[in-house]
C-alpha cells in the first residue's frame, strides 16, 4: 500500500505509548495513558460508601464520569462514560463488594471537538481507566480491557485499495473516510470447551465497537479487518501494561527538602521531576 501517513509512521505503527502511575493523593488508584500527544488521566476510588439511592444489594455500583479538557462535559462525555461503564464491567467482579461504590473519573488531557471524542482519545480513556483500576487493586478483576483506534483511508488515485491505519492522530481521524475504536477484554477463557491456553497473552474478546464510515462501504471484510488491526494494537498495549506493573511501586526518592538551596520562602523547583521529559523512570516507550 502506497499510502503514507503525515508523521511518517507505518500503517500499523502506534505513536509512542506513555504509561504513568500518577499517585494522585485523594483516590485509590490513578494513571495516565497516552498515544503520543493523545492522553487521558483516570482515577479510581472504591469500594467506598455509596449513597442509599444508588445502592445495589448484590453488587457494587460502578459510577463513571468523563471530563473533556476544555469547557464543560456535554452529552458526548456522558455517552463515553456510559460506554466505559458497559465495556469495563465485564472485567470487574462487582459482586464481591455489594452495597459499595466504585468511582471512576476520566479526565481527557487532549483537546477534542465538542461533538465527540476521536477514536484514539477514546482508546486512551479506556486504557487509562484499566490502568487506574489495576493500580487501585481493590476490586477483583477477571481481565484487563485494552483499546486502540483505527482509521480508514481510500486513495483516490489508485484502484480502490483501502488503507487501514492504527492509532490515528486527531487530524488523521478528521480526514479519514472511516474511523473507530475497538476495545477488547484480555482474559483466559475458562469455559469448559476451550483448551487451557499456555501462551502468555490471554485470549481477547471484543467488548466495544464504535465504527463509522463516511461514504458507506459494501465491503463486508473491511469491518473485520479494522477489528483485527485494533486487536493487534490492543495486544501490544496489554503487554505494555504488563511491563508497567512494577512501576506501581517505588518511585525514585524525592529530592530532600534541602532548605539551603531553596529560595527564601522554600520554593523548590520540582519541574524536572514532574515534567514529561523527565518522567523516564515511569514511562515506557514502545
Amino acid at each position, binding site marked *: 500500500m502506497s499510502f503514507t501517513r503525515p508523521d511518517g509512521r507505518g500503517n500499523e505503527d502506534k505513536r509512542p505509548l506513555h504509561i504513568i502511575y500518577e499517585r494522585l*493523593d485523594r483516590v485509590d488508584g490513578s494513571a495516565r495513558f497516552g498515544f503520543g500527544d493523545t492522553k487521558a488521566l483516570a*482515577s479510581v476510588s472504591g469500594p467506598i460508601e455509596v449513597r442509599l439511592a444508588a445502592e445495589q444489594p448484590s453488587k457494587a455500583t460502578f459510577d463513571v464520569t468523563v471530563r473533556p479538557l476544555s469547557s*464543560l462535559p456535554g452529552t458526548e462525555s456522558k455517552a463515553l462514560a456510559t460506554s466505559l461503564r458497559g465495556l469495563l464491567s465485564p472485567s470487574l467482579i462487582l459482586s464481591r463488594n455489594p452495597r459499595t461504590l466504585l468511582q471512576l473519573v476520566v479526565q481527557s488531557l487532549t483537546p477534542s471537538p465538542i461533538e465527540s471524542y476521536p477514536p484514539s482519545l477514546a482508546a486512551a480513556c479506556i486504557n487509562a481507566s484499566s490502568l487506574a483500576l489495576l493500580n487501585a487493586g481493590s476490586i477483583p478483576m477477571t481481565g484487563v480491557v485494552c483499546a486502540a483506534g483505527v482509521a480508514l483511508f481510500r486513495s483516490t488515485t489508485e484502484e480502490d485499495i483501502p488503507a487501514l491505519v492504527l492509532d490515528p492522530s486527531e487530524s488523521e481521524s478528521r480526514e479519514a473516510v472511516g474511523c473507530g475504536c475497538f476495545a477488547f477484554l484480555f482474559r483466559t477463557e475458562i469455559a469448559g470447551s476451550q483448551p487451557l491456553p499456555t501462551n502468555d497473552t490471554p485470549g481477547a474478546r471484543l467488548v466495544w465497537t464504535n465504527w463509522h464510515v463516511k461514504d458507506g462501504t459494501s465491503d463486508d471484510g473491511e469491518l473485520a479487518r479494522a477489528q483485527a488491526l485494533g486487536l493487534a494494537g490492543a495486544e501490544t498495549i496489554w503487554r505494555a501494561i504488563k511491563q508497567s506493573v512494577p512501576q506501581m511501586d517505588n518511585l525514585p526518592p524525592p529530592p530532600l527538602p534541602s532548605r539551603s538551596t531553596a529560595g527564601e520562602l522554600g520554593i523548590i523547583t520540582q519541574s524536572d521531576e514532574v515534567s514529561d521529559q523527565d518522567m523516564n523512570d515511569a514511562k515506557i516507550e514502545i
Partner: protein
Amino acid sequence: MRPPSPSIAEKDFFFNALNQNLRLDGRELLEPRQLGISFGSELGHVECSLGKTRVLAHVDAKMVRPEAQRPFEGLITIHCELSPMAGSEYEPGRQSDEEIALARMLDKIFRRSDAIDRETLCIIAGERVWHLHLSIHALADAGGLLDCASLASAAALRHFRRSEVEVIGAREVIVHDSTTRAPVPLAMHHTPFCVSFAFYSPPGVGREPRMLLDPAGLEQRLAHGMLTLALTPQRELAVVHKAGGLPLAPESLMGAVQVAARRARELEAWLDVRVREDWGRKKVEVR
C-alpha cells in the same frame, strides 16, 4: 461523601506540635510546600502541584461575536468543576460549597480584577473577538486547592498564545497557523497570585493567633480561621477573603500581607523562568 473528621489523637498532637513551632510535614511555620509545574505539548496546558495538591489548567480561544454592550472587548469564561478525582467529597453532578467558593474566587482573581486586557482580544469591533476559555481541573485536593488553582491558571494564561490574525478590508479575517506566524501571548495587566494562611486561636486570652502559611490537609481542616490573599508582585491586592470566625488584629493581617507580597514576588519570578524555558523548547520544535 465527606471524609471522617480527624481523630482526637491527631487533633491533640497537631496542637502540641504547633506549640513547639513544629508542623507535621517538617515545614517552618511560614514555609510553603514544594511547587511543581509541567507544560503540555500545546500552549495553555499546564499542570501545577503544591505538595500533593495538583491542578490542571487549560486555556483555549475561539472567535465569537462580542456582546452588544461591549463591542471592543473579548470574552473570558472560567470553567471550574470539581470531580471525585480531587477527593471523594466532591460528588459528580452536585455543586459543593467548595466548588462554588473556588469558582467565585478564581472569577474575582482573573476576571473581575481585569488581569487580562480584554480590548486586545478584539479583532473587529462589534464583529469578532476572541473568547477565552479557562478550564480548571482539580486532580488532587490535599489542601490549598485555591492557591494551586490560581497558580495553574496564571501559568496557563501566561503560557497560552493565540493565533495571529490579520484583518483584510472590513470583514475578512485570516487566521495564521502557528507554523507560519508566531502566535501571540495574551496581554495581561497583572498576574495575581493567591496565598493562603491558616490561623489557630492560642490557649489563654489576649494572645495573638498562630499563623501558618500554605496549610496542608489536616492543617486546613483543624484551622480556626483561614485568610486568602490574592495579590500581584507589584503589591496590588486583588482579593482578600477571610473565612472562619477567628478575630484577627490588624497587625496580624498586615503581617500576612507582607509575607504574601514576598511570596507573590517569588512565585512571579519562578513562573516567569519556567514559562520562558518551556517556550524556548517549543520554539525549537516549531522550526
